[in-house]
């Protein structure tokens, strides 16, 4: 088998074009440092998470996660290249070393974490399945949806979550399933169904597609847990720590009031020991991660703290206008919590 593999490999190596050699020895960090950029797997197009603007630049919260890692490693958030991946090929791309980080609205589940040789480095966005309804219905809560016609955007777990939720609450519904998000939005608009269900982050995108978005409202209930976060290969704890702490640094920065506007001043003038440790003014915390001392300063300066990243991509600064909800800091009633730097 090994001989076959070697023969095959050398046979293919003869064809010069298109072959790129990735350093096999060493850790991901060494490989990344050597090639000079982070290779980041992102979605092939999801509003607010990863998409391209008219100039072809990648934008979105998933994209910013990778930019933050590049900022930590190289001090330059632009040293990252993106590989758009479909849902089916994403794990293979990570396992085969085609990408260094997979940041592609991937839900953290036990089977993926334990069964696929992957490690989830954190949660960038707490998502969950929700409902979008016409305001005219006068529905304030999903509990009032008994007997509704529900437009479902076909997904692996969407239908299951929906039927579980309605059964648990003793309610009936008529499912109408669509393949494409554009179709289900049109169906809701045409009155084919009373309510549209999908992951909450997507419902806000669906709402923009409607002729009068303000006539529709996303209900407060979230009926499933979909924590989305960056994924790395298992077995490289050093790289795992960098990705995890790049995200923690952003969350800590928001909690400590460090923003992209004031980070450089605070690094010099702040008296707060937490801020001084985070920004490298005190201690050698960057060294543990094998990144420069001012790694957090570079992240905050170039990508922003967690709050800035959220608002810019999916929050009030974007077209989507998603409320912080579960993604608010723990001190403000949300779930975003980061261990301290010390």
């Amino acid at each position, binding site marked *: 088998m090994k001989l076959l*593999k070697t023969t*095959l*490999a050398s046979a*293919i*190596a003869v064809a010069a*074009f*298109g*072959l*790129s*050699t*990735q*350093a*096999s020895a060493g850790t991901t960090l060494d490989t990344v440092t050597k090639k000079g950029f982070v290779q980041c797997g992102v979605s*092939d*197009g*999801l*509003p*607010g998470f990863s*998409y*391209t*603007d*008219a*100039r*072809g630049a990648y934008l979105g919260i998933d994209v910013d996660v990778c930019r933050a890692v590049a900022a930590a490693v190289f001090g330059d958030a632009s040293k990252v*290249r993106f*590989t*758009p*991946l*479909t849902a*089916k*090929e994403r794990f*293979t*791309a990570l*396992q*085969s*070393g*085609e990408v260094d980080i997979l940041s592609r609205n991937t839900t953290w589940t036990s089977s993926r974490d334990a069964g696929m040789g992957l490690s989830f480095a954190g949660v960038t966005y707490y998502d969950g399945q929700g409902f979008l309804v016409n305001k005219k219905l006068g529905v304030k809560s999903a509990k009032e949806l008994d007997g509704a016609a529900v437009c479902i955007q076909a997904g692996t777990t969407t239908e299951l979550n929906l039927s579980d939720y309605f059964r648990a609450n003793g309610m009936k519904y008529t499912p109408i399933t669509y393949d494409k998000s*554009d179709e289900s*939005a049109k169906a809701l608009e045409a009155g084919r169904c009373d309510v549209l269900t999908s992951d909450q982050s997507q419902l806000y*995108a669906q709402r*923009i*597609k*409607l002729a009068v978005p303000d006539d529709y409202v996303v209900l407060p209930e979230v009926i499933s847990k979909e924590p989305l976060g960056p994924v790395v290969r298992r077995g490289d704890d050093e790289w795992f720590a960098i990705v995890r702490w790049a995200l923690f640094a952003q969350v800590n920065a928001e909690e400590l009031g460090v923003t992209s506007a004031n980070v450089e001043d605070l690094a010099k003038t702040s008296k707060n020991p937490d801020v001084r440790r985070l920004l490298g003014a005190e201690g050698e915390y960057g060294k543990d991660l094998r990144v420069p001392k001012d790694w957090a300063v570079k992240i905050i300066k170039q990508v922003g703290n967690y709050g800035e990243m959220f608002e810019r991509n999916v929050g009030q600064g*974007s*077209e*989507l206008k998603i409320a912080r909800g579960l993604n608010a800091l723990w001190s403000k009633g949300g779930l975003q919590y980061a261990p301290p730097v010390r």
Partner: protein
Amino acid sequence: MSTHVFKPDLPPPTLSVGVLGWLRANLFSNGFNTALTVLAVYLIWLMVPPVIQWAVLDANWSGTTREDCTADGACWVFIQNRLQQFMYGFYPLSQRWRVDLTVLAAVLGAVPIFVRAMPRRWIYAIGYLLVYPWLAFWLLHGGLGLQIVETSQWGGLMLTLVIAVVGIAGAMPLGILLALGRRSHMPAIRVICVTFIEFWRGVPLITVLFMSSVMLPLFLPEQISIDKLLRALIAVTLFEAAYIAEVVRGGLQAIPKGQYEAAGALGLGYWRMMGLVILPQALKLVIPGIVNTFIALFKDTSLVIIIGLFDLFNSIHQATVDPAWLGFATEGYVFAAAVYWIFCFGMSRYSMRLERRLHTGHKR
């Protein structure tokens, strides 16, 4: 003696000539046809005015953001805004002249091949086919003084054309060889060709692309990764070669045995018999089939969306998920359809011209 003078012919009844006559003969010849005509006119009346209303009369033509799309109709502002990306993908702005130059070189370089007065056209054509691919690769990919542009930055219509042209140029010779091999008298060659053709015809292109992008990396050692585009190109070429092979085989079977025997009697060996006598006749016969395959190939290039390549269709899909332009998917897909139609229709017209020009031997 008086001569008989014929009366002048009466004109034909007004109902059988001119517009009226044509209408009567073609649209209202009997009750059934009349009903069909009325139904068709009704359907056209039902569908065409709203489309024109949407696409032209009520459409928004100028502006820069979605706020400029105030009228009810189509928002072509979206297409305008993204047109560059639909054409070039993520190809660096400062390097896009290279793509233009590649296309220009292809067109200008091909012109002499179609000038019938030119001497030694065949030698020129072969030279062109040997030199141009290297030139195009150099211009698009870079190196030797030009900035390298990774294939991951290729996209839009340019990528669609690269896949289609490479697929066509690669599948044609390979397909001819496979067709000849399938009719070969040597069992080993015949078995290999039959196996190849039946294997590739038996699997859907989407599976082939999927395997090349999801399974192949798992089989290869970690330090070797084959360019994603190259994988797609190889997959498309092998796949289409199998189809071309069967089309060409159809042509080969239509050539009477006498032609082979006559060529043999003239002392021609296998390759000269095929090259000078059989193939020129066979290929001419199957032009419609070959063009049919190529048109299908051109449209099939949009399947690379499933392996995350940003061809024309995927670029448009990508633009429709930009939060700044959510909800304009219809405009995007209509534009995609228009571009694909222009190319496919162009190919079809060219093949008809070619057929007429080569329609010599079996003209009676």
